[in-house]
C-alpha cells in the first residue's frame, strides 16, 4: 500500500478543478510527478503543488504476500488534510483505491466513480456521487444538493455503488437514481428521488416535500415525517419491519406506489413510517 498525503496550503480563492486527485492517476508516481499534475483555477492551469504539500509514503512491508510493488491504483490511498471545500471533482471517475479527506470537500466529490472508496470526515458539496456507477462514498458530515443524482439535463443519475451520509442532505438527493443505494442518517429537503427509476434511497430522518416526484421505479423509504406529500402516490398497504436490500427498518410502514403524475403504470415504491 502506498499512502499519498496532500496537505492544503491555505485558503483558496476561485474554486480549483482537481479531477486529477484520484488513485488511478497518483498510482506509481513520485512526489515530484504528483506535485506537477495540472489543475485548473478559473482560466489558469497550475501545478497541484500550488495548492498542496505532497508527501508519498510507500509501505513496502505490506506487500510481501501480494508480490506487488504497491503501485497499482487499488493499492493507493490518498489522504487529504485541511479544508478542501473549494476544491472540486476530487475522486471524479476513480476506479479503485481509497481517498480519505480530513475536512470538508468541494463539489462533484466522487462523481462518476466506478470503484474504490471515499471517506469525507467533514461535509461534502453539491453533486457528490453524481452519476456514480460503483464503489463507496461515505460522507461523515452533511451533504449539499444533488447527491448521487443526474447532471443537468440528464435523467440518469447514480447507477450503482453506495452513498452513506451520516448527517443531512439538501435537495434532489438521488435525482434520476437508476441503481445502487443512498442512506441518509439525517434529514433531506426537497424532491428527494425525483425521476428515480431504480435503486434504493433510505432517509432515517424527515423530508420536506416532493419525495419521489415523477419516479417510475426503485424504492424510497422515509423513517421520519414528510411535510408535504407528493400528490401522485396511491397507498397500497402496510408492512411491519420492512427489509430493503440489506437494510432492516423497524416499525410499521405505509407503502405507496407512484408517481401517477408521470404515467398510468408507475413502478416506484415509497415507504413512510406510521408508528
Amino acid at each position, binding site marked *: 500500500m502506498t499512502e499519498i498525503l496532500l496537505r492544503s496550503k491555505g485558503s483558496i480563492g476561485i474554486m480549483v478543478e482537481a479531477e486529477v486527485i484520484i488513485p488511478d492517476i497518483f498510482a506509481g508516481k513520485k512526489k515530484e510527478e504528483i506535485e506537477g499534475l495540472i489543475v485548473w483555477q478559473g482560466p489558469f492551469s497550475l501545478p497541484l503543488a500550488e495548492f498542496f504539500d505532497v508527501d508519498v509514503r510507500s509501505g513496502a512491508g505490506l506487500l510481501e504476500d501480494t508480490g506487488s510493488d504497491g503501485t497499482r491504483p487499488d493499492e493507493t490511498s490518498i489522504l487529504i488534510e485541511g479544508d478542501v471545500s473549494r476544491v472540486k471533482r476530487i475522486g471524479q471517475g476513480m476506479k479503485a483505491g481509497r481517498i480519505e479527506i480530513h475536512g470538508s470537500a468541494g463539489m462533484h466529490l466522487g462523481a462518476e466513480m466506478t470503484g474504490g472508496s471515499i471517506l469525507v470526515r467533514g461535509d461534502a458539496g453539491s453533486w457528490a456521487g453524481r452519476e456514480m456507477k460503483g464503489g463507496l462514498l461515505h460522507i461523515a458530515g452533511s451533504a449539499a444538493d444533488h447527491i448521487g443524482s*443526474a*447532471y*443537468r*439535463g*440528464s*435523467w440518469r443519475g447514480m447507477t450503482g455503488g453506495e452513498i452513506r451520509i451520516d448527517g443531512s442532505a439538501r435537495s434532489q438527493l438521488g435525482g434520476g437514481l437508476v441503481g445502487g443505494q443512498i442512506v441518509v442518517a439525517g434529514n433531506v429537503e426537497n424532491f428527494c428521488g425525483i425521476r428515480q427509476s431504480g435503486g434504493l434511497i433510505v432517509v432515517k430522518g424527515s423530508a420536506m416535500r416532493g419525495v419521489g416526484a415523477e419516479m417510475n421505479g426503485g424504492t424510497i423509504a422515509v423513517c421520519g415525517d414528510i411535510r408535504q406529500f407528493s400528490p401522485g402516490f396511491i397507498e397500497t398497504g402496510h408492512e411491519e419491519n420492512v427489509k430493503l436490500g440489506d437494510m432492516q427498518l423497524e416499525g410499521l410502514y405505509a407503502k405507496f406506489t407512484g408517481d401517477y403524475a*408521470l*404515467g398510468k403504470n408507475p413502478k416506484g415504491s415509497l415507504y413512510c413510517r406510521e408508528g
Partner: protein
Amino acid sequence: MAAASNTTANTTIIRNGCVFDPLNGINGDIKDIFIREGKVVSSLTGAEMRDATIIDASGKTVMPGGVDSHSHVAGAKVNAGRLMRPEDHYKSVRTKTGITHCGSGYTVPSVYKQGYDYAAMGYTTVFEAAMPPLEARHTHEEMRSTPILDMGAYMVLGNNWFVMRYLKDGDIEKAAAYVAWMMRTHKAYGIKCVNPAGVENWGWAKNVHGLDEPNIHFEVTPRELIRGLAEVNEMLGLPMSLHLHTNNLGHPGNWEIARDSLMIPSGIEAKNRSELEWAKTKESAKRKQSLYLAHAQFSAYGGSSWRDFCSGAPELARYINQVDDVVIDSGSVPFGPATTMTGDGPGQHDLYMITGQKWSNCDVELECGSGVLSLVYMKSSPVHSVQWAIGLEVMLLIDDPWKTIMTTDHPNGGIFTQYPQLITWLMSKKARDDTAKECHKWAYDKSSLGGVDREMSLYEMAIVTRANPARTIGMAYRKGHLGVGADGDVTVYDINPDKLNVNDTAALAAKLARPDFTVKDGRIVARKGEIVSVPEGRRYYCRPYVDDALEKEMLSDVKDWFKYYTVGFANYPVPDKYLKNPVAIQVNRPLEAEDLVRG
C-alpha cells in the same frame, strides 16, 4: 504519404488516386485530378504544376467531396434541441485550436463543431432539410456561422395557410407566385412538405391519417397539397424536386400511404429551369425525379401496431423499383443517442407519449409547426432493431443506387458522424449479420434484411453519398462529381480498393471517418480528421420569378392575411446581409411554365 508543398499558387493536383466519380462513369480508374482557382480543370500548365499543392493519392480512394442532401443543422428547432439537452453537450466537447473555435454537442452540435465534424469526415456540402419561413433568419444566422460547408435550406410549405388556400381553390398560378415570392423573400433553396394538412390540424390537437382526409377549416387534403406543390415546383422549374415527409410518419403500417403519396406526382415532368453553367459530366447531371422522399425508413413500416410491428420496406421498394420519378434518402438508424426534430408536430407528440422523454413543441403561426424529443436507439429494443433493419433495407432493396441517398436524417435516426458505420453495413453482409446478433431478434425476424446478400461497392457508395444527393437537389452542376468545371471538392480516403476487406468493419469505419484529406475549392481543409484551414462556405438559394401582375395580385392576398402574423410585413423578409457568400440561382420564365402544366 502525401507531400503537400503549399505555395502561393492556387492550383492543386491529386495524383494517382483510384477515382470514383459516378457522374463521369469513372470506377476506380487511376487518374490525376487537377484543380485551378477552386475548379476542376483538365490539365495545368508546366508552371502551374511546379507551384501546385500536390497530394499523392497512390493506392488511395478519391471521391468528390461528400454531399448531404438532408440534415438538420441550422435553425430554430435545431437550437431548441441544443437548449433542451445540456447533457448532450458537456460530455462531447472540442477544444479550440489556433484556427478553429471550440464547440460542444454530440447529437446536436454547435454550428462550429458541425462544420468541422462534417469536413473532417470528407463532406463539403450540407443542406438543411426544414426551414420554417418565420425561422428563416435564424436558419441563415446559423448557416452563416457554420464554417467550411456549402449550404442551403429547404422551406417548409406543406401546411402554409396561403398555399393551402390557393390549392383548395385550385389556383395553382397564385400558389406558384406565392412560393416564388417566398423563396426569394426567405432565401430558400427548395420546397419541403411535412405531413401535409396534418400539422395544421395539430393546432387543434388533431392530425390527418389518409391522403383524402380534408383538414380543419382549410378543408384541403394531403393529396391536393402534394400534387399542387409538385406542380408548383415544376412550373417554377426549381433545381430540386418537391421534398416530401409523408403523412403518418413513424407509425406502424405507414408504407402504404407512403407508396400512395409517391404515386401522386406521377406524370409531372421534372423540369430544372435554372440559369446555370453546368460542369462537364458523362451521365446527365440533371434530376429525373419529380418527388424526393425524405427519410424513407420512417415511412416504411408494416404491421398495424407496435405489437405486430414489422418492416414495410420490401413493399415500398417494390414500387420504387418500378418507377423512375422517385428518389429517396434513407434516414437510417445506426443505434445510439439521437435527438428527433421535425416539422411534424403531431408525429413528435405521439413519440413523446410512447417514450416519455423530454419533448418540446412549437406552432409557427400561419406556416407550420415542429417538435423536438431526445431519444436513444437501443439494440435491445425490438422496435429500434427493426428500424435499424429498415434503414438498411431501403438502401439495399431499391436496385438502382441512383434512386437512393444515404442519410441518418441527422439527428433523427442517428448522428451524421455515424455515416462511416452505416457504410460498413451497406458494404458488408457480415457486418450486418454481426450486428443483427447483438440486436433484438426482431431485427431479422421482422424484416427481410437477413436474406439480403447485396454488398455495395465503393462506386455505389460514391453514388449514394455524392453523385446522387447532388443530382437530386440540382447541385450536380458543380457538386458531387469531378468533371471539368466542377468545384474542387475532393475526399481522399486511405483505402486501397484492391486490398479492401469490407469485413474488417472497424478498420473500414475508421478510414471513412478520418479521410487523409478533405479538399474544398482546391484547398486542404482537413487532414486525417484535423482541421487545417477554415474557408467560408457558400449559401445557395433560388430566385424564381413569375409574371409581375400575378405577383401583385398574390401579394394583395398575402397583405390582407398578414394581420394574423405577429410580425409586420416589412420585417418579414430575410435581408441580404444575413447571408455570407450567397449564390442566388435564377429560375424560370413564367409563361412557358404555365404552358407546361396546362398543355
